[in-house]
């Protein structure tokens, strides 16, 4: 097939795979999914882009999501950048990001402005306190969900438990700065994982 290669298109992307036809389509797709995402956008992103629009296969989505999570920064923001970049280069990344943030930002500021007028009411203070406690539970639950995913981690469960416990104590009780915790405990985890992966490679090389 005579190819007319588009920059930033994956080499393994089938040419008949649906893709956003324009920057505007990309913008509105990300706006639509951001506006549906209460308390987290990842699940909606998967449903809209993979199940409905089929811009990505499930495997492509998983791979992108893994990279979005490794890199620092808000995960869904990273993901929208990467997907936009894939189709339209840097401009596409910016447009996807703008779609993800513009309308929700306006809504959240309106909510805050509305709240400012009534913030002295003890009822409103109480309601926010209650919502804060719920938000805390949601974030902790994300940690619990991911905890079960550690079973497949190459570090092994003992090392994982030890790292989770030490990190929790360092941040929640000792209030140590994040950078030192990431560099020291993340560094130990990375080095140990590198060693474990090396062992696995060796083992699979020895067994034909």
């Amino acid at each position, binding site marked *: 097939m005579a190819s007319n290669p588009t920059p930033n298109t994956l080499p393994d992307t089938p040419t008949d795979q649906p893709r956003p036809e324009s920057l505007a389509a990309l913008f509105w797709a990300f706006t639509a999914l951001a506006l549906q995402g209460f308390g987290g956008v990842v699940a909606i992103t998967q449903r809209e882009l993979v199940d409905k629009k089929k811009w990505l296969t499930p495997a492509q989505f998983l791979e992108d999501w893994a*990279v979005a999570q490794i890199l620092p920064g*808000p995960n869904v923001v990273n993901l929208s950048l990467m997907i936009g970049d894939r189709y339209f280069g840097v401009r596409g990344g910016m447009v996807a990001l703008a779609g*993800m943030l513009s309308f929700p930002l306006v*809504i959240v500021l309106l909510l805050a402005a509305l709240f400012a007028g009534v913030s002295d009411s003890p009822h409103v203070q*109480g*309601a926010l306190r209650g919502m804060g*406690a719920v938000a805390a539970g949601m974030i902790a639950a994300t940690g619990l969900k991911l905890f079960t995913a550690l079973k497949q981690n190459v570090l092994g469960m003992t090392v994982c438990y030890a790292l989770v416990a030490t990190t929790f104590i360092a941040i929640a009780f000792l209030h140590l700065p994040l950078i030192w915790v990431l560099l020291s405990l993340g560094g130990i985890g990375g080095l140990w994982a590198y060693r474990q*992966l090396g062992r696995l490679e060796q083992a699979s090389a020895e067994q034909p």
Partner: protein
Amino acid sequence: MSTILSATDWLGLLTNFMALSLLAVGGAITTVPDMHRTLVNQHQWLTDSQFNAAIAIAQAAPGPNVLFVALMGWQVGLNAASGWAAGWQVWASALLGVLVSMLGILLPSTTLTFVASRWAHQNREWRAVRAFKQGLAPVVVALLMATGWILTTAQGTSVTHWPIWLLTTLVAILVWRTQLHLLWLLGAGAVLGWFNLI
């Protein structure tokens, strides 16, 4: 609060968020303990309840969770302007807060994402790339749990706050184990708080 922010303070806010941007492995929410340490404890740009309100409002609204950072900037701007005559300066200061905080939290990480995601995609089978990802995973998980802990104890650590802790624990279990819609939970929390039950 009537904290008046100097240009140096605004720059401090920007660089603080820029540094956190590069540390936010696992999402912006994992840097919440560090933000609390700097913004509330160290500089007193925000009160404890303003800090928590920013997170609660952003969770209740649609869109990425990172928008709680915009609300913190908004609030820091409002606090900074409260010593001035009320009027357009207050809104200008609040919008400056939004701009500074969002630029800070997004610019470094998005720049890195552009460069690194192209590179990582090409080298995804490399041992070092996989080791980095796997080694950091338990730390990221613990950071999320620690964030929950810090938010729920922000009202105080005395035992009289046990209803708040109980609510947080119940929500954590429900979200973990069921598919219950998050809006129901936020609504229930708001009602409990409205009637001063927690």
